[in-house]
């Protein structure tokens, strides 16, 4: 094995007649020191990674926390201008929820069905190709997804068209591959024995998939979808391109700009990075992070509470 030859500091491989000694030699001390140094290095690396995490969370909670009030959560930005400190994120919260829901409505069925294809039907080249490109798609930059929606709807409707649907399409391009991969993993966890048990009872394949495979992996699938939602709910760039920002609630997903939390945070920052805009941006960031954490908690709860204990 390569291990032996690669060891530059190891003892020479000639056995000696001398009585065995377990005392530390000079080279042993050096190796020990290197070992200690490296242990410190990797631990410190982890601690360094904690700095952004902790400082970021502290900043968001402290700066954003100042802003959070019932008013902030339940008013929009209509009639707010200049240095006025009123106004809030109600419209942005609603817009984020609407667009994310619509994106989920598009992505969840397509992603789940494609995962079913890969696990239950797919064999050969097509399945391999699909798996490969789904992986590749997870790396599409979010701004490119936004540009795609812009280009698509410019051709379909017209260059000035902006709507929640556009944003949902852009988010779906980002969300579908995530749903496919995680649902695929969940479906593969269902033991083959259960499929065979159903087939042996004379249950057709499609009913076996729906009533046994999907039923057994339901908790995992819901968890996957919730986590996928958490992944895209904070996307900013595609929304900046497709729905921009408005000051009031827009419930029509087929027409007009829609306010969302990430774009709200950005545009407040961009307008007034030293005054009240900054405060509102932090407030919106806190609301957004709380939403993401809630989604993660929900996902953990579902997978703990409802998953079938595997033997």
């Amino acid at each position: 094995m390569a291990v032996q030859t690669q060891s530059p500091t190891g003892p020479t491989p000639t056995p000696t007649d001398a009585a065995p000694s377990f005392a530390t030699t000079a080279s042993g001390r050096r190796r020990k020191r290197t070992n200690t140094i490296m242990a410190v290095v990797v631990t410190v690396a982890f601690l360094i990674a904690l700095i952004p995490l902790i400082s970021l969370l502290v900043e968001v909670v402290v700066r954003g926390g100042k802003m959070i009030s019932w008013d902030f959560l339940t008013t929009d930005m209509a009639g707010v201008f200049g240095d006025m400190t009123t106004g809030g994120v109600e419209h942005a919260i609603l817009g984020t929820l609407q667009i994310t829901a619509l994106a989920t409505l598009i992505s969840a069925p397509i992603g789940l069905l494609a995962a079913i294809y890969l696990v239950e039907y797919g064999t050969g080249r097509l399945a391999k190709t699909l798996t490969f490109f789904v992986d590749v798609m997870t790396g599409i930059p979010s701004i490119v997804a936004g540009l795609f929606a812009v280009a698509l709807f410019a051709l379909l409707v017209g260059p000035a068209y902006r709507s929640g649907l556009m944003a949902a399409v852009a988010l779906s391009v980002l969300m579908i591959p995530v749903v496919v991969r995680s649902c695929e993993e969940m479906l593969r966890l269902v033991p083959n024995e259960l499929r065979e048990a159903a087939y042996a009872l004379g249950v057709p394949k499609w009913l076996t998939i729906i009533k046994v495979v999907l039923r057994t992996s339901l908790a995992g699938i819901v968890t996957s979808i919730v986590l996928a939602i958490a992944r895209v709910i904070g996307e900013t760039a595609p929304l900046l391109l497709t729905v921009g920002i408005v000051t009031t609630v827009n419930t029509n997903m087929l027409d007009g700009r829609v306010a969302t939390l990430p774009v709200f945070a950005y545009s407040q920052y961009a307008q007034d990075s030293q005054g009240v805009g900054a405060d509102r941006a932090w407030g919106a960031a806190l609301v957004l992070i709380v939403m993401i954490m809630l989604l993660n908690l929900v996902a953990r709860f579902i997978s703990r509470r409802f998953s079938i204990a595997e033997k």
Partner: protein
Amino acid sequence: MSTDVRPDPVDAVAPEPLSDHTKHPGRFGNRLFSGISLASGILILATLVAVAAFLLREALPAITSSTQDIADFTRGLSLGQYIAPLVFGTVLAAIIALVIAVPLSIAIALFIAHYAPKRLAGPVAYAIDLLAAIPSVVYGLWGFYWLVPLVGPFFDWVSTTFSFIPLLADYAPPAKNITSAAVVLAVMVLPIVTAVSREVFLQTPRLHIEASLALGATRWEVARMAILPFGRSGVISASMLGLGRALGETMAVLMILAPFAKGSSFFSWHILQSAQHQTIAANIAQQIREAHGLSVSVLIASGLALFAITLVVNMIARWIVSRRAAFSGAN
């Protein structure tokens, strides 16, 4: 026991002849269901093709038009001259980010897979994964309000101390330069590089580890002799995935980096100077609101370039991963 309590096969359900032509249970459902799941798979492939096709379709006017037609928007630059410095900035920012993130990620992955006690490894991995859950706009805010003021004095010190190195020369506050943006990018790609590296490190065969231990190796020697060589290709593909992320990130760059003036064509290596660089993604986000007609087309053309770059990077990364999977599966 009497037999009459058993389901009586005679009258429970009348047995159906096997060769009944009219009745093929589930055949229709099977066809329909396998059809729609196949269609969903194909739709996904079609979407990827559509992304490329629509970007190309909308970029075409800018590609085919003369420099004069777009000069208004590009301040006299040709399409190539306009996009090239953006590509340069994009790649430079991503590479600086990787230089910071990859060593850190490998160390953290080693910490989780090899050093941390079992009880601690889970929470530690979770904390790193949490970094991936934070929206990019929040990273932008954090970078602008927390990081930039903090690193300013440090950059100042580095720049004066190493002023003989052109790369680091001539820092001027505020620190809204490409290095600050890259630090934030590094934090953003850290979780994915760590997660993938961690997975491959954990796959190191016990046999290799035990063989090293049996030779009297210290913990670090085990890492160096068994774990790191085994995980090399995994770390490479993890870095490529991180590179893909860093290339395409918009908000953190948009909110931190002070870009060069519109219409200038800079290929600057002064990574501590601001107003010297810009990335494709941030440029699109910044310019799209004032753009219309042909200028949208110019921006989409730059987006197409970004799409092509990230696609190639991701395909190489995935190709390495899939080749590796086949390799380790054979063992």
